């Protein structure tokens, strides 16, 4: 990690519209769901107890609403590693986050995420990158879209 850089290059505006290759499949494990649920202070039996989840009509424990961030992470790594992107990750601040769900993620899902850069704006020297990760299951059906707005600070 490089802190206190002497110079920085701006974010490449040509990133807008770029679509990245799909990530390797992410297999959602029951214990990972429980671990994540504990970390976000979840208390619902749907997150922990497979029987409670099955009674509610799910195949296995249900992941909390922000769990897609675990899958999205691989796509944001692709974005930050893009050789011509000009994104210095030591200057990146998370500005906004959104999720739009077709259905909740459940343990056993095998998920693939595809990142698209939907917008790049410059405001007062800062760049704002909006990146959308579309997450589908093994059948190709949409599960959730995770949208992040990253602010890349221009100041040294």
């Amino acid at each position: 990690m490089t802190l206190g850089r002497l110079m920085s290059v701006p974010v490449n505006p040509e990133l807008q519209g770029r679509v990245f290759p799909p990530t390797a499949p992410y297999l959602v494990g029951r214990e990972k769901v429980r671990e994540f649920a504990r970390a976000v202070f979840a208390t619902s039996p749907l997150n922990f107890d497979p029987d409670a989840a099955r009674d509610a009509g799910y195949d296995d424990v249900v992941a909390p609403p922000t769990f897609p961030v675990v899958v999205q992470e691989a796509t944001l790594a692709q974005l930050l590693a893009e050789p011509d992107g000009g994104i210095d990750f030591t200057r990146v601040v998370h500005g906004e986050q959104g999720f739009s769900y077709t259905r909740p993620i459940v343990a056993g899902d095998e998920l693939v995420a595809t990142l698209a850069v939907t917008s790049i704006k410059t405001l007062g020297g800062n760049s704002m990158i909006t990146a959308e990760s579309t997450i589908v299951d093994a059948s190709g059906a949409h599960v959730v879209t995770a949208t992040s707005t990253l602010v890349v600070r221009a100041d040294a």
Partner: protein
Amino acid sequence: MIVGEIVAERTFHLTRDSLVRYAGASGDFNAIHYRDDIAESVGLPGVLAHGMLTMGLAVQPVVDWLDNRGIVLGYGVRFTRPVVVDPTDGATVTVVAKVAALNETETRIDLTVTCADATVLGKAQVRVSLV
């Protein structure tokens, strides 16, 4: 249910342990969430909670209120102010969830999320479908 009604409220106490736990669970090992020296070197007022941890816990009162009666259709926030987690005293985050809009297919619940009397998430909105 009417617009303006408070459907859920909860207070969360965060400690450094909470941040380490979230780092492991989420895979976000950015050192500003557990190392004072690194946080200071990049000009932060202290070790911060992961924005995604604050977002993740803030929706929990709505998840519990919803129970089996519906699903979350959408959830979004703006990260407006960091949550500084003191090494000994931690931080207390309070969530109030209120009905903001209602129609036949969905209900919008707005979250007011505060820490030390300051709002830390902006435009924190959960769209739910009640069955």
